[in-house]
């Protein structure tokens, strides 16, 4: 019977048995890592025994002079033929020779002794300490490594896309470290690791090696991993993936920089084909770290560029938004009007507008909930609604009602607009108005008396499309001014987080009772600015002053 196919069942002292399929014609068992089968057993010599094939037979020979190699209980002499069912004892390790396909009594679990996790930064610090007594093979390997490091560093210094850089890393370590399987895994936007690229020797098929527990340590915690034999240490206790894929040697490094981990690179081989060393680990960690740093700087540069573009967009949006608001005010004998807006961010949600007719003037001042782009968009809509509706309407109630109906339609985000709309009758000085949840305006008498207009309070626009707005009327005597503002004025904060408040505004308005309306607008804005000092403006500010001058006929 041919026993070409030989399967070993190896039971290390105190360890869990594992199996090895003999694929090579000769293999060395011993304590050292470089042995074909490396076993954690202090009673083993570094190279303890050799198994080799001669014709159809397998032979065991001891490589140590100590009498610690037994076959079926007897010390071995020279080379001895082994048969299925034989059992050898090497040091404290039992080795049973069995036929391929022979049922295995227990699940294969492998010893733990040689999994090494170290923080990648510690590996980096240690790397580069050269042994002094290099010569021959070691010197050649060192030269190869230096060439490789040099090549990757040249690529990193040049203009290269992140994907190309990762591919270069993968290709170079694949060529230099000769794994059976090399793969780069990158975190997606949800932090899940996804295979990004992989390499295998020609003719070798299958998915790249992946283990969730390895990923957790390496990509998750930034550890570098060197795994010899297929390993069950506590971290891998529940991971069947490693055991299932057979006895493996694995080296893995995080794609790590000071900002965190982008993913990991994993090289693996069957242990009898290729065993990775500390030296391999150091090389992989060092190259990965250089490449990651470069990828991060590319990403940062890209982000900075996007940011600059966005800022330009915002500037343009601000120009467009401000150009929607009139800045030239009518110079008429019957009335004077002025207004101003100061956005908190570069685009904002406050607005004002007016529309002159032959015997009256419509005016509107409003505030969209929220800030920034969403508010600015709704502000533009609101302003268009005012412009489109005011010429047809005769009552402020109908005007706000129409704007409200439109704003309430399909309002999924529950944004709303507060606003005050009025129409000054140039013949009588009467202002008919409706208020959609907006701050009460002030009437400033020519004599300096200031009173707030609390009548006709209605609901903000955008919530209930059927709301009917009440109408109020205030009669302005020639020289009286109606002053409208948004809450950015009264809620402006100073360095001590005090609000500007209505009392300060009212006091300032009393002083400005006889100043031109342009001055009333600019001076009240100025007073708020002075109060806030260096405290950043947290809300948009808009104000408007409308003064009745009387009929001149």
């Amino acid at each position, binding site marked *: 019977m041919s026993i070409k196919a030989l399967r070993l069942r190896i039971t290390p002292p105190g360890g869990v048995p594992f199996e090895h399929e003999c694929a090579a014609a000769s293999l060395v068992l011993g304590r050292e890592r470089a042995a074909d089968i490396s076993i954690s057993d202090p009673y083993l010599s570094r190279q303890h025994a050799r198994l080799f094939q001669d014709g159809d037979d397998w032979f065991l020979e001891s490589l140590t002079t100590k009498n610690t190699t037994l076959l079926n209980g007897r010390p071995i002499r020279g080379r001895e033929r082994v048969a299925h069912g034989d059992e050898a004892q090497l040091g404290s390790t039992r080795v049973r020779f069995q036929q391929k396909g022979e049922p295995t009594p227990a699940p294969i679990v492998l010893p733990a002794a040689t999994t090494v996790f170290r923080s990648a930064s510690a590996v980096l610090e240690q790397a580069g300490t050269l042994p002094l007594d290099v010569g021959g093979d070691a010197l050649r390997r060192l030269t190869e490594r230096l060439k490789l490091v040099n090549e990757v560093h040249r690529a990193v210094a040049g203009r290269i896309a992140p994907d190309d850089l990762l591919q270069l890393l993968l290709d170079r370590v694949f060529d230099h470290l000769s794994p059976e399987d090399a793969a780069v895994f990158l975190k997606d936007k949800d932090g899940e690791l996804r295979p990004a690229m992989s390499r295998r020797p020609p003719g070798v098929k299958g998915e790249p090696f992946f283990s969730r527990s390895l990923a957790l340590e390496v990509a998750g915690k930034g550890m570098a991993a060197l795994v010899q034999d297929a390993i069950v240490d506590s971290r891998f206790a529940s991971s069947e993936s490693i055991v299932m894929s057979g006895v493996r040697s694995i080296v893995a490094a995080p794609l790590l920089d000071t900002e965190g981990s982008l993913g990991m690179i994993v090289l693996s081989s069957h242990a009898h084909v290729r065993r990775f060393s500390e030296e391999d680990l150091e090389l992989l960690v060092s190259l990965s770290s250089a490449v990651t740093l470069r990828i991060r700087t590319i990403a940062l540069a890209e982000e900075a560029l996007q940011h600059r573009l966005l800022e330009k967009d915002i500037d343009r949006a601000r120009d467009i938004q401000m150009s929607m608001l009139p800045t030239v005010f009518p110079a008429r004998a019957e009335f004077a009007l002025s207004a101003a807006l100061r956005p908190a961010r570069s685009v904002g949600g406050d607005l004002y507008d007016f529309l002159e007719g032959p015997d009256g003037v419509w005016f509107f001042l409003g505030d969209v909930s929220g800030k920034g782009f969403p508010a600015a968009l709704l502000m533009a809509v609101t302003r268009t609604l005012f412009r489109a509706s005011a010429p047809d309407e005769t009552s402020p109630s109908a005007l706000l009602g129409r704007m409200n109906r439109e704003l309430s339609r399909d309002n999924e985000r529950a944004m709303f607009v507060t606003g005050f709309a009025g129409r000054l009758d140039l013949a009588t000085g009467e202002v008919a108005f409706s208020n959609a949840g907006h701050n009460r305006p002030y009437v400033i008498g020519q004599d300096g008396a200031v009173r707030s207009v609390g009548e006709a309070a209605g609901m*903000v626009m955008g919530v209930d499309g059927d709301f009917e707005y009440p109408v109020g009327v205030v009669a302005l005597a020639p020289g009286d001014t109606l002053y409208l503002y948004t809450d950015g004025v009264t809620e402006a904060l100073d360095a001590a987080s005090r609000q500007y408040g209505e009392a300060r505004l009212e006091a300032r308005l009393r002083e400005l009772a006889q100043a031109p309306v342009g001055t009333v607008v600019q001076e009240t804005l100025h007073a708020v600015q002075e109060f806030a000092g260096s405290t950043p403006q947290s809300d948009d500010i808009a104000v408007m002053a409308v003064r009745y001058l009387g009929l001149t006929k």
Partner: protein
Amino acid sequence: MEMTDETRDGVVIVAPTGRLDVNTSAELEKRLLDKVAAGETRFVVDLTAVEYISSAGLRVLLLLAKQLKARSGRLVLSSLGPAVRQVFELAGLLPVFAVEASREQAMGRLASGP
């Protein structure tokens, strides 16, 4: 902004504290909408400890009410201080919300059905 929340008798009770303005209401919005997305339909928002509410804060509460209405759910506000109540009044929004004087009364209102 500090915020506490608990779920009692199938009712989510959220109590924000401090200023509910444009800077803090985004967090409240996320907290509330996450719970709606998780299937919660009955909410009490206790405003006892809110010293100031801006239009951004009002919007979050309107949004919650709107989403709950679409799911046959219910929102009751409780314990509005004078400053907060004034903002609701000014915006004309008091009639839009179910409002109770205390958290217990708000719970009672949810327990007794619509």
